[in-house]
């Protein structure tokens, strides 16, 4: 596994995601409030591109008729912004773990380690920055894949 510089930190603001190619593999990098997570872009169910999915939360219920509302008329989500739903069949995955919500024991999206590295460390290597200019004054998102 090599480390790859995939983006400058400023390119993936909190709450957004970015699709990158690492060794021909499509990997989607999420910024959840300053924490970065990298998942294989391919949905393990039937192969939809998770990057194109809806980033949302979980609607949960303790039983029929019991929805949780944060304010009147507003359903409360848990893990708000931390769930990615496949753009095809709508399967829900936890961005932090890659686990499927409906079938967590058997189904998960492959996850890759992410770190944030200062530019001054990167310009000396041994990182792989494919067609990506790295400058000393910025911080970068590095994916191990």
């Amino acid at each position, binding site marked *: 596994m090599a480390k790859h510089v995939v983006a400058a930190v400023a390119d993936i603001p909190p709450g957004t995601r970015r699709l*990158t*190619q690492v060794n021909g593999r*499509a990997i989607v990098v999420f910024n959840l409030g300053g924490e970065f997570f990298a998942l294989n872009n391919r949905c393990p169910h*039937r*192969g*939809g591109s998770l990057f*194109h999915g*809806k980033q949302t939360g979980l609607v949960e219920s303790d039983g029929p008729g019991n929805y949780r509302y944060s304010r009147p008329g507003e359903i409360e989500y848990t893990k708000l912004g931390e769930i990615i739903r496949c753009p*095809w069949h*709508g399967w829900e995955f936890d961005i932090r773990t890659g686990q499927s919500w409906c079938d967590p024991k058997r189904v998960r999206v492959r996850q890759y380690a992410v770190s944030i590295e200062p530019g001054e460390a990167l310009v000396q290597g041994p990182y792989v920055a494919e067609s990506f200019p790295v400058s000393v004054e910025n911080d970068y998102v590095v994916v191990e894949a």
Partner: protein
Amino acid sequence: MNIEVRQPVHGAKDSGKARVGIFDCDIHPKSSLEDLRPYLSNRWWDYLQTYGQRQRHGYVKGFPYPKSQPLASRRDSWPPGGGLPASDLDFMRQQHLDFYGIEWGIMNPLSPTGQGEQNDELSAAMAFAANEYQLEGWNRREPRLKASVVIPYENGEMSRAEIRKRTGDRRFAHVLFLSRTSELLGKRRYWPIFEAAVEAGFPIGVHVFGSSGRPMSNTGWPSFYIEEITEHSASLAASVTSLIVEGVFERHPELKIVLIEAGFAWIPSLGWRLDQNWKRMRDEVPHLRRAPSEYLREHFWVSTQPMEEAEEPDHVLDVMAWIGWDKILFASDYPHWDFDDPFVALPPSLSEERRNKIYSGNAKALYRLD
């Protein structure tokens, strides 16, 4: 940054297997009412602008939308240049036809087509326009896309007239029904359509959806979309039973019916139940000369999508074997959200021979293509 998302990497992964060109029996090109305008008379265009359509759906606009995803479509199917999913031929080629190596696909337009419209004259005018637009807007530019003969199916004679107009035209693959007809499909009001289809040599495709004016279930309206989408098979099972029991296949031994987007795991149990009851009350329907399941196996084809996903994939193979390895046709349902990816949809343990039949051989034989 703009990245081309889906690389055709599957070929490399499956490199041990030869892949035939895929025949996709369910593609949904999107058209607007404006697209149909050149093929509608001023009379019907003015009518539509003034009064609109009256579907068999009570005084509401139609089905509840969105369905799981916006416009019931894959979120990645909205053309980058704008417009609705599957409205842009170039993007459809890039994302679907070329990407998967689709050799040939059947267009099953769902709306606007006038099917199920209460006003028979308007229904017939819109069906004609929908057929012309499939030819001019799609098939002429992309001959891989074959058209469906859209018919005003609630009126048998008007439908017969539309089928006759298309007889001998190889740009059309089959005659299209939606499953939610106002009466069960075997009733005699629909027989002129079956007769015309047999005369023209067209199979009948029955695609789920439509407005029957009645609930999907036979016990009232469901509360949830998950019920609606699951009950398509139950709804269609009633019409399949009707087609068999009314004696349609005794009258029309050449009639071929393709069930599209209804799933198929329910079919063997329907056959078993019908046979069980036929043995007990054969004299109620003496016009049936064979066990009901024999008609079911002989006259019906099924499209794959949405494939049932069993915990044990081999259970699906058992079902396929019952239906018949010659009767299963691959379908993707592009661009809808419950799309099946041709590269991964079929159970992995299928033999090469059966895989090829499902991907193309069965459709070639049914639709008599070379």
